[in-house]
């Protein structure tokens, strides 16, 4: 007996939650003496009103798709991977080492190699907490958080002592060779006669993110491994009964999760900065948690949630720029969205279920 049709669960609840979040955001904006309607208009226009805006929105969204998928794959095994931030940081290091190792002749060669580098480093960073969880029972939430800090410190050390260009004052690596430059939307769309803004950072990685989403779907719902991951996530005792090795699933799920987070680096490091800088991840690892939560750990949901958060990032930046609304307030808006879509899910769900129930009863009568 299902209380609600599936579409209501998947679409209606998040939609209502977002509207409530926006309502309260409006109240907050109004409270500091600004016009909420102007604010929302600025945000929408800033994020979708120009190809430059769209380019930034999709650039952010690409980051969130990767980290969102990373959180989701672990979550299917009931592992809460909070370490996306650190894994993406290390992924950046992997991508950088690959890009700087060889004078790449063409991006088509550099991209797969960089993907392997980023995925490997991200997976390696997830492996240690995974192993500790599987073999020693150390809680993965604690260890992955700790590894975020270790990752940040490690990156700082490597940038300063290994990758820094001698004589430079900047804590950043050398610029990647021109052959490692990923086509931006401007370059990708020009052959089709579409004039996309030149400065927008959205690039090839967006397509890789979409491919990763499709692969994610097949992995989780079509393969034996995905079946075992989901089975383990639902019940460890049942998994044991079925002959599924819990330690193996924990480690494999975390490796895939770390690899996906590490893959993010092809977007922010290789696609945008084209060099490794400090704190390149900018919290995308944590946004991935919200994105996975809101997207119900399904690639389509994650995609849509990523676009939403891309919009919040980009629109928020515009808001801060044009309306002199403090940047902190934009964070408040993001927090409200996370709170209403994630934490306060039942606040919308329960009344809505009752509504559907009353409605179906009426129809019967």
């Amino acid at each position, binding site marked *: 007996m299902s209380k609600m049709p599936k579409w209501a669960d998947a679409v209606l609840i998040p939609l209502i939650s977002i509207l409530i979040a926006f309502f309260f955001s409006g109240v907050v904006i109004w409270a500091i003496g600004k016009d909420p309607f102007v604010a929302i208009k600025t945000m929408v226009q800033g994020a979708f009103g120009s190809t430059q805006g769209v380019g930034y929105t999709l650039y952010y969204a690409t980051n969130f798709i990767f980290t969102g998928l990373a959180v989701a794959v672990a979550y299917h095994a009931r592992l809460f991977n909070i370490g996306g931030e650190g894994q993406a940081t290390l992924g950046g290091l992997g991508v950088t080492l690959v890009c700087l190792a060889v004078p790449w002749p063409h991006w088509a060669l550099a991209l797969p190699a960089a993907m392997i580098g980023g995925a490997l480093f991200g997976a390696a960073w997830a492996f240690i907490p995974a192993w500790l969880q599987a073999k020693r029972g150390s809680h993965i939430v604690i260890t992955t958080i700790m590894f975020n800090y270790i990752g940040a410190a490690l990156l700082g050390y490597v940038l300063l002592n290994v990758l820094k260009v001698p004589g430079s004052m900047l804590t950043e690596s050398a610029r990647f060779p021109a052959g490692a430059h990923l086509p931006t939307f401007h370059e990708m769309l020009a052959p089709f006669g579409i004039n996309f803004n030149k400065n927008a950072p959205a690039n090839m990685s967006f397509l890789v993110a979409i491919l990763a989403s499709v692969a994610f779907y097949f992995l989780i719902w*079509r393969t*034996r491994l995905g079946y075992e991951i989901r089975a383990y996530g639902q019940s460890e005792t049942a998994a*044991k009964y*079925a*002959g599924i090795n819990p330690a193996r699933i924990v480690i494999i799920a975390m490796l895939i999760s770390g690899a996906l987070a590490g893959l993010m680096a092809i977007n922010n490091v290789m696609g945008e900065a084209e060099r490794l800088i400090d704190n390149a991840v900018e919290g995308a690892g944590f946004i991935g948690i919200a994105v996975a939560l809101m997207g119900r750990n399904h690639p389509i949901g994650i995609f849509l949630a990523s676009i939403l958060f891309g919009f919040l990032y980009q629109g928020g930046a515009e808001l801060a720029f044009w309306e002199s609304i403090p940047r902190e307030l934009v964070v408040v808006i993001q927090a409200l969205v996370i709170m209403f879509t994630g934490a306060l899910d039942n606040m919308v769900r329960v009344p809505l279920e009752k509504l559907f129930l009353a409605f179906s009863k009426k129809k019967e009568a």
Partner: protein
Amino acid sequence: MSVQNEAGRQETVAPTASAPAIELRGISKAFGPVQANKDIAISVAKGSIHGIIGENGAGKSTLMSILYGFYKADSGQILINGKEVHITDSQAAIAAGIGMVFQHFKLVENFTVLENVILGAEDGGLLKPSLAKARKLLEQLSDEYELSVDPDALIEDLSVGHQQRVEILKALYRQADILILDEPTGVLTPAEADHLFRILEGLKEQGKTIILITHKLREIMEITDTVSVMRRGEMTATVKTAETSPEELAELMVGRKVLLRVDKKPATPGKPVVQIENLRVVDEQKVERVKGVSFEVREGEILGIAGVAGNGQTELLEVLGGYMSGTGKILINGQEIDLSGKHSNGQTRRARGISHVPEDRHDEGLILEFQAWENMVFGYHHAPEYQKNALLMDNAGIKAMTQKSMDKFDVRPPNPKLEAKSFSGGNQQKIVLAREIERNPDLLLVGQPTRGVDIGAIEFIHQQIVALRDQGKAILLVSVELDEILSLSDRIIVMFDGQIMGERRPAETNEGELGLLMAGITDEKTEEAGAQK
């Protein structure tokens, strides 16, 4: 005993020309489209024991939840001693004199008996006066009703039977006049159950009214004065127990004639399929659970293992099923299998021809969130016939196979895309059974095949197990239901404290004898041994 009941009832019925202790009128409750209770009416006389029997999902628990204030009825009245009461929560139920003993006890494990008894009913901020009062009352009650429990013992140190007594004491401490017990004997040994029934008889003599919810016909026949039968949310009949029979009650419950005994031919055992020698199992807490057990199961026979839950049967099944390690020797079709757990798991065991219907279908046998078709290959998901290619599973093929199995095993509704949690207990069990039997195993391990399963499905499940035996397969049955062990097994061994207490033939033994063995003793002091863990 029935004569006593008869007399007892006459005594109490005559003066209660006044009002019944509890009366329900037209109680209805719906959960969405499901009508859990429909126009329920009962009237229970003061000082009598009233049974409510029905299959799972018949609405018994809903009705009791309404009586105890967990749910609010959509319509209807509740009258206590002739006066209408509104039971809005459990506090109101207690105030109305209703006490409830739940199937799953609601006790604080690391509190003492006394602390549990006064919990939520303290007289003031300081515990000492309440504790003293409770201690006095407990002494008094233990004399009156054989309700003896050490007031200073921690709950976690008590046996299940004693924990249940604490629940009863809790209700009596709150001055309950009407005591509702939900499936009280599910976890008890036969001796403990008998003791419980003596307590209930004693309470009845003191004028308490008792409502007993159960699905066990035998208990209804043994102890109740009147019995109501529920089916699909409705009260189909209320009869005097003395004027009915188990067969009639079963028919009223299911809505058709039911075979209560298993119809089977004598076994013709062949060569041994599984031989176990000196098996020992130590659990994670370093407690030895199985202490040197040896036996064998042959082709074409059902070996039943009787015993109170927690005496090593579970671990025995888990070692055979491949997900617990042990020491000793197990041969399957003459070949030794790995017991260390290093080279084996559930899947290697399945490859050896061992299928396993686990005791706990919610936590082991099924993934409740998975759809039926996903559950239908659970544990066999590596089998080549379920793969589409090297990477992907053949989901469409599995769905088609599931549809066939569901039809064959009469799973209702036969919808492969329904989540396992949406099926009733009996139908869930049929899914597990279909999965395991359809693999055509040499040895079928079956743990508690009919726990939480309704009578109609029990009949079907028993038939399937016997049919597999008749194909010459070996079956190892573990059950805490003595009825089931006695009617299904060709041979019975009784386990107590990790050891085999004895072997019997079903035709040459009875519940009394097995009950003694299950309590670990062979003399008359059944009760005390049963109570001590």
